[in-house]
């Protein structure tokens, strides 16, 4: 038997008394594509950060080529040939692609030998099948290509092990496909790939071996060939996962909560919305599918009154512009924004404040112009418990929560019982299956109670599972509409990418 290339031996790590990793042991073979899968907070990222020298383990050892290794900082890890692509890219947006690649690893000559370096990097691109324009500024690149810059940066540093933390969370389905195939290419060239994800499909289609983690512990390390989706989900969740059901409407839709007719926007640069018409009825979920950047963001801006438009929009039976954004919220309009950290939360605020944000001026949260702390606390505790936010502390800063739990706070606030029209953008982006199912169940419950939901998502499974009707948006216009059950996955994909309309 060959010596394992990388071996974790009973590694444990505690943060402030909460154990993030308990006796984690598994092996990764050289030149393999190894997946690490688990729910949010299962300890996947922590164990990789220990390997990468970001955290130091409380106990246990990591063996690289049979030699006990501990890195004190990422530099040492990089020097030992380990590279990590973080979920949030660490690039300098104003510098060009090649400058980002060499940053921190420049030759020591007085002037940077640009021509030589360009040739070196181009050679690297050819070897590994990349085709980036090296002179382009990083800020102008789409996310998928920025990720390629990150990978090239690691290859330039001669990394032998590439760790990717949820790389597809920010990518469109097409970009994800490109990335994963590229990783397969790298594997063929003797690189070892470690992929952290919670998307089962990626694990099953691309990895050789997989380590399943739950609550900081390794549940199993298996060869992928011996697993199927059902088995993997069971191991990951610790219980049987419900197979997605195509939705069934409990009653016929009634009055419209959103009526949009001939909506257009003008803008000097960027995308224009062109003559959109759309109805969402009470008790209905309408999905909008599309590749990112086809006008979804502009539509959200119009509905939340951040962008001017021409055409007519009636929300909850009244002209949208008859009310201010604040008044519309009070009338029962809820928004789950596309970027939860930027637009949905004030991260340094405590959970209880984030839970009442925008409603803080309503009774019983305020009385006589002052915040009423006992009521807020009581409300927050109820909501945190109801939505299963972990850890369940009202006075904890929201910044300390994981992405999925942050999203739960937004949903608790925006999709409460009294919401009558909900605009939900990418509600389960970057959250684990457990939370996603919880959200879906919650949306179905809202629908049953007579709320109308407009769902914008890039997750086609989510759209097909939840929606009654799906519209496809491309280049600022709706190009197709069908009942959700009449869309097949390939149809939808083709329609979105524009190979067929």
């Amino acid at each position, binding site marked *: 038997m060959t010596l394992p290339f990388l071996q974790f031996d009973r590694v444990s790590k505690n943060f402030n008394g909460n154990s993030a990793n308990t006796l984690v042991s598994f092996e990764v073979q050289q030149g393999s594509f190894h997946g690490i899968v688990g729910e949010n907070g299962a300890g996947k990222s922590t164990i990789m950060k220990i390997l990468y020298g970001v955290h130091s383990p409380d106990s246990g050892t990591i063996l690289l080529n049979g030699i006990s290794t501990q890195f004190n900082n990422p530099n040492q890890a990089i020097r030992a040939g380990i590279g990590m692509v973080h979920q949030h890219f*660490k690039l*300098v*947006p104003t*510098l060009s692609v090649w400058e980002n690649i060499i*940053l*921190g690893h420049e030759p020591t000559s007085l002037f*940077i030998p640009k021509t030589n370096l360009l040739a070196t990097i181009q050679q690297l691109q050819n070897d590994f099948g990349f085709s980036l324009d090296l002179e382009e500024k990083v800020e102008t690149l789409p996310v998928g290509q920025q990720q390629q810059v990150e990978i090239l940066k690691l290859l330039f540093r001669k990394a032998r092990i590439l760790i990717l933390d949820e790389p597809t969370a920010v990518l469109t389905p097409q970009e994800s496909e490109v990335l994963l195939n590229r990783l397969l290419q790298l594997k063929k060239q003797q690189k070892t790939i470690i992929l952290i994800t919670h998307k089962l499909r990626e694990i099953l289609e691309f990895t050789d071996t997989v380590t399943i983690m739950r609550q900081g512990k390794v549940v199993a390390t298996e060869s992928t060939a011996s697993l199927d989706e059902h088995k993997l989900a069971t191991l990951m969740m610790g219980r049987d996962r419900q197979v997605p059901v195509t939705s069934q409407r409990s009653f016929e839709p009634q009055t419209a909560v959103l009526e949009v007719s001939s909506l257009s926007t003008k803008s000097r640069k960027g995308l224009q919305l062109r003559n959109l018409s759309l109805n969402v009825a009470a008790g209905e979920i309408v999905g909008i599918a599309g590749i990112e950047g086809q006008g979804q963001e502009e539509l959200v801006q119009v509905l939340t009154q951040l962008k001017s438009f021409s055409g007519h929009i009636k929300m909850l039976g009244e002209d949208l512009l008859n009310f201010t954004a604040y008044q519309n919220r009070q009338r029962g309009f809820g928004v789950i924004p596309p970027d939860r950290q930027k637009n949905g939360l004030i991260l340094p605020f405590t959970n209880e404040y984030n839970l009442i944000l925008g409603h803080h001026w309503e009774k019983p949260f305020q009385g006589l112009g002052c915040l009423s702390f006992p009521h807020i606390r009581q409300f927050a505790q109820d909501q945190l418990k109801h939505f299963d936010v972990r850890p369940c502390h009202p006075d904890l800063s929201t910044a300390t929560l994981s992405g999925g739990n942050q999203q739960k706070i937004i949903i608790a606030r925006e999709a409460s019982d009294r919401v009558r029209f909900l605009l939900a953008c990418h509600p389960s982006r970057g959250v684990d299956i457990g939370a996603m199912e919880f959200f879906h169940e919650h949306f179905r419950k809202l629908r049953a109670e007579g709320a109308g939901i407009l769902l914008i998502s890039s997750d086609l499974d989510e759209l097909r599972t939840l929606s009654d009707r799906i519209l496809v948006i491309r280049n600022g216009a709706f190009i197709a509409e069908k009942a959700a059950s009449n869309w097949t996955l390939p149809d939808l994909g083709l329609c979105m990418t524009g190979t067929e309309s």
Partner: protein
Amino acid sequence: MIDFINSTLRFATPLIFASMGGLLCERAGIATICIEGIILVSAFTSAAFDYYSSSPWLSLGAALLVGGVFMLLHAFLTVRVKSDPIISAITVNLLASGMTPLLMKLLFSNSTNTPSLPQENRFLPVFIPFLSSFPIIRHFSNHLSLVYLAILLPFVIQITLTNTRWGLRLIAAGDGPEALVTSGVSLNHTRFVALFLGGCLMAFSGSYLAIGHSSQFIRDMSAGRGFIALAAIIIGKWQPIPTLVACVFFGFTDALQIELQSSEMLNLILPAQFIQSLPYVISLVVLVFAMGRAKPPLAIGQTSR
């Protein structure tokens, strides 16, 4: 006309040094509104040092050191202790404007100005024979050496920023500090060096004012030039060459102001104070119109972590 252009260059010189120093600091990601304070301490240092040593070049060296060290104070407060850069810079400015009269009082028993220096102890115009052989340029070949240096400086900085690894790291420190750290470069080190060198460049400005442009240090003699330099950086969108253009423009308004003051006709109609305020009014107006499109380094305004 030739006099007017020469006068413009003379007025622009201190602004160019000051803004190039500020530009380095800001590009490294630290808001630096303490250029004014650095000009003051370095101007005072030059004048006082020159009084005792009678050597302008040694005095310049001393001023560079003091300017750099003062910026290290700003660096220590913002980079190391991670305090707010605006608060820190105000501290430096107040310290400078309070300390200089005190030291003058202690050294020269006079809290408003240092003793006047004899002509031979100041920077003297350098005649450049090479330039004088050209037909038009020869009229501009009789300046202080610092003036020539100032005009070259932005080009040197431009090349440094775009073609050296130090420049690359400096830009990364300003536009993507996290990227710099994950690339294995010390962010603190990069910023400390940038701020020290930035302070040195600002000190050229102070030295020029005290022992080149005039012959003594006068209390608060920087007269807002540090802030005009800051305005030039913003108008120049944090790019060396456009910033140079902005500095020359402000130098031009200064020269214009002097020119107008000497015109007796105008003095009868307009009070002198109005004309004197002209450079400041113009900078305000230009700033208002340029501000909308300015794009500062990304790390500026974020509290460093």
